[in-house]
């Protein structure tokens, strides 16, 4: 105002600011952060913090996204391709428009180049030595988690290469080998010892494993079930597992012009599609209905799209050779019956009705069982491995009584690794594990466990955000992103991966559709809507600071948080 001339009258101008008035006293209600579990995280057996890694993708922080995934899952490249994604089935967004394409994004993050993440094992005062039997998804994951916990793992693998079902079961057009190689390499780079061509019971004895502080049994289900019908051993009749192993070993296989595949699981689908690529016309014959097929619907659909024919309600009875090289399979026709006691649909034979199919080759894929020949009897129950009372022995994967999926294998491995660590530290029991659960369904978080180890606090089990708590007013309807596929007529001519990678822009857009249920993602809603301007946001940490001396407790931030991450509490 220029000179301070006393002749110039002072008109009232307020320079003081209202910060001095503590309007926070108007109400005892104050906003508290409320971190809840997103349903996708709970549904994921592996307990991956899905909203976290999606958040990082959305912000372009890809290295941190990959890091977030790797904290819980060493095989994002595999899971991003072959898993049946229960996360997407439980995505809250599905109730509003369409679920987020989580699997696609897991694949996207797994292929970040150059791989910028370097994993560091946690410091460990008393590292232990653990033997892992089987270098499949469960075994390798267990070794990985143990390494992150600061222990030494040695993996014994009977075959000449590690990977288990990932290497020998799943064909290249679903899981390219370089992806697997990279992910296994990552695990080995943590210092995990791998001994291939080493079969327990042949190259080393079971008792030799006593040298280790603990053992994780994950031999998988490597033996194919038999059809137990006449003609099963004829030339030209394959079992599915062996067939796939040969394909995955890049061996030359000849099937002829037509092939019949018997079975309805994922293996049968893989077999059928691989057979297609060998130039054969393929028909799948399954003894029940399509709805009852155990294969993942996506896989069934893929097989259909590629031209595999399906026939249902056919139970194989015998196989004969006819005129030269052709095989004839005789099927008993079946019909759907009333559901049994556990409400599963039954199939019953139609008396006297039979059907035959002729083909150059027949491949059976009717299930896998565990090779128990080398396992002590006390660890066996109902054809599966069971650890019984021995505190040193743990098991997981297809060899135990659990769903036969890669994610369940990884989850079992994680539970075992944490349980081992707890054991080594003098804690025991299932209750201990419950503290690191994500939600209520049993998936466990290694990150939570590591933080407990460091900070000494049990992280609380958290509530899951249901769809009703999401404020959809803040979201506009949108379609989910679906990555492209190879052109349909090209697919069966090549072993190239059928599902294409998403491009970066679409991946970022897809990730931005995530509601971030129950977890602040620095959307700034509360910041903009607070009438007092009492909220500060840390964008990187995704935390909020509320000026409680001036918060009037109106509740706008809690109501306006689209993801239910704020709750009003009476602080009296």
């Amino acid at each position, binding site marked *: *105002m*220029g000179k301070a001339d006393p*002749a*110039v*009258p002072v*008109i*009232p*101008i*307020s*320079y003081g600011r209202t910060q001095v008035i503590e309007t926070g006293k108007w109400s005892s209600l104050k906003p508290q952060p409320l971190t809840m579990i997103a349903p996708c995280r709970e549904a994921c057996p592996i307990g991956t913090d899905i909203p976290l890694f999606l958040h990082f993708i959305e912000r372009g922080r890809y290295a941190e996204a990959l890091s977030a995934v790797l904290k819980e899952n060493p095989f994002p490249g595999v899971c991003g391709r072959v898993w049946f994604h229960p996360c997407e089935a439980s995505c809250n967004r599905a109730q509003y428009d369409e679920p987020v394409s989580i699997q696609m994004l897991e694949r996207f993050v797994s292929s970040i180049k150059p791989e910028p993440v370097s994993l560091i094992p946690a410091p460990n005062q008393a590292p232990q030595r653990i033997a892992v039997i089987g270098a499949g998804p469960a075994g390798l994951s267990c070794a990985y988690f143990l390494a992150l916990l600061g222990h030494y793992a040695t993996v014994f693998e009977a075959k000449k290469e590690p990977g288990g079902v990932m290497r020998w079961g799943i064909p290249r057009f679903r899981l390219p080998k370089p992806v697997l190689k990279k992910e296994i390499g990552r695990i080995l780079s943590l210092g995990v010892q791998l001994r291939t061509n080493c079969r327990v019971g042949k190259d080393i004895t079971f008792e030799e494993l006593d040298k280790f502080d603990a053992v994780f049994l994950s031999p998988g289900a490597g033996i194919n079930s038999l059809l137990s019908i006449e003609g099963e051993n004829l030339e030209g009749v394959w079992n599915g597992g062996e067939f796939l192993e040969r394909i995955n070993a890049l061996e030359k296989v000849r099937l002829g012009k037509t092939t019949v595949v018997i079975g309805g699981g994922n293996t049968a689908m893989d077999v059928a599609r691989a057979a297609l690529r060998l130039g054969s016309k393929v028909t799948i014959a399954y003894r029940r209905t399509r709805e009852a097929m155990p294969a993942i619907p996506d896989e069934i659909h893929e097989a259909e799209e590629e031209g595999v024919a399906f026939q249902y309600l056919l139970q194989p009875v015998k196989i004969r050779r006819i005129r030269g090289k052709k095989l004839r399979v005789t099927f008993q026709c079946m019909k759907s019956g009333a559901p049994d006691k556990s409400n599963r649909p039954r199939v019953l034979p139609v008396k006297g009705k039979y059907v035959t199919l002729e083909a150059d080759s027949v491949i059976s894929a009717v299930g896998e069982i565990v090779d128990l020949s080398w396992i002590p009897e006390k660890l066996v129950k109902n054809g599966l491995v069971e650890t019984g009372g021995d505190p040193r022995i743990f098991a997981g994967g297809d060899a135990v009584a659990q769903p036969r999926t890669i994610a369940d294998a990884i989850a079992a491995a994680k539970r075992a690794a944490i349980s081992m660590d707890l054991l080594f530290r003098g804690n025991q029991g299932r209750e201990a594990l419950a503290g690191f659960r994500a939600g209520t369904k049993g998936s466990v978080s290694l990150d939570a466990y590591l933080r407990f180890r460091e900070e000494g606090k049990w992280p609380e089990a958290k509530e899951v955000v249901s769809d009703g708590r999401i404020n959809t007013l803040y979201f506009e309807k949108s379609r989910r992103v679906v990555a492209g596929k190879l052109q349909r007529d090209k697919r069966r001519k090549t072993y190239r991966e059928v599902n294409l990678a998403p491009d970066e822009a679409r991946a970022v857009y897809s990730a931005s559709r995530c509601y971030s249920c129950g977890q602040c993602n620095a959307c700034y809603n509360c910041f903009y809507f607070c009438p007092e301007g009492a909220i500060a946001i840390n964008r990187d940490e995704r935390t909020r600071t509320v000026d409680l001396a001036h918060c009037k407790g109106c509740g706008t931030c809690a109501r306006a948080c689209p993801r239910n991450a704020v709750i009003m509490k009476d602080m009296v």
Partner: protein
Amino acid sequence: MRNLRAGLPKKCRDHEGYGMKEFLSGNDAVAHAVKLCRTPLIAAYPITPQTSIYERLSGWEASGQLKGIMMRTESEHSAMASCIAASLTGVRTFTATSSQGLALMHEMLHFAAGCRTPIVMVNVNRIISAPWGFWADHLDSLSQRDTGWMQFYCENGQEALDTVIQAYKIAEQVYLPAMIATDAFFVSHFVEPVDVPDQEQVDAFLPPLDLPHRFDVDKPGFLMPVVTSEFYRHYKNAASTAMDSVQELAEQVDEEFRRKFGRGYGVVESLLTDDAEVVVVTEGSMTSTARVAIGDLRQEGIKVGLLKLRLFRPFPVRAVHKALCGKKKIAVIDRNCSVGGGGIFCQELKAALFHSKDHPGIYSYIAGVGGTDITPDVIRRIALKTLESSIPADAPEWIMNDEA
């Protein structure tokens, strides 16, 4: 209004002043003053008989002769609002109005004074409705006497021009707004020779503009907030003190003006009052008529004097005391009536002289209301009537017709 400068012979120049005389209406004279004061922001709304001030200034703004911005507002209320805001921002402002427009501005007049803005406004005194009419009456500006504005009542166009210039100088020292009243048609539209000063003269008289810039984006503050009772009282008291100082300041500025321009008016003007037995008090254009009437009465040997009230707010108590001390009879002519309270100038004069030890008789006359003519004869009658009376009535006497 033609500028006849080019055609005038040299001897028509005023030998005391430096400027040129032009034939100008009162409104034009005012417009010239505003231009000479380099007032850059004018906000106005047309109303008879002010319109030619507005038009004249608009014309100069459009042609660039008047540098600045003319805000052609949609009402007088908004015009004053804009002036207040602009003045607080730190520029010199001006507006003009009359009658209804001034009444419409009423809320803003208080606001302007409360904001301590040195706005100068010319009000052409016109009757205030209802009923309707356009002729001279002082009630419009007198109704606003409580708003905290200075008020000057000008006798003719020359005085109006000079007073506008003086008013800026006074206002920008005391930070109070000034209203300059001129009679409708008698001053606003009468064309008379007016001495228009040179720009350099006025620049030298008015110091460079140094209004505070109340809005400072680098040191932001909240102007004119709600205040406590105590603060308001203090603030009003400060304004009152400032207004009181204008009695003396106006005289000083007028004296300085006289020295520099050769013309001065005082806050009051006494004429032949030394031995007067009755002093007639006038305001505005009626004063010119009164000069003639008083002159004639003196010729007849009647001891009558004249007091012209120029400054009305603040009421020039000291000057009035000085001029009227020892006088026995005072006849106040009011060209207005505050219904139920009589003539306003008379009220104020009575209040000013209440403690005067001489206790003059103050006789109230209401004449010229509605723009009726105050002829020399009316003045004469008033003077004689007053001389005849011994006790002044409480109520004013209305001069209703021009006959005796």
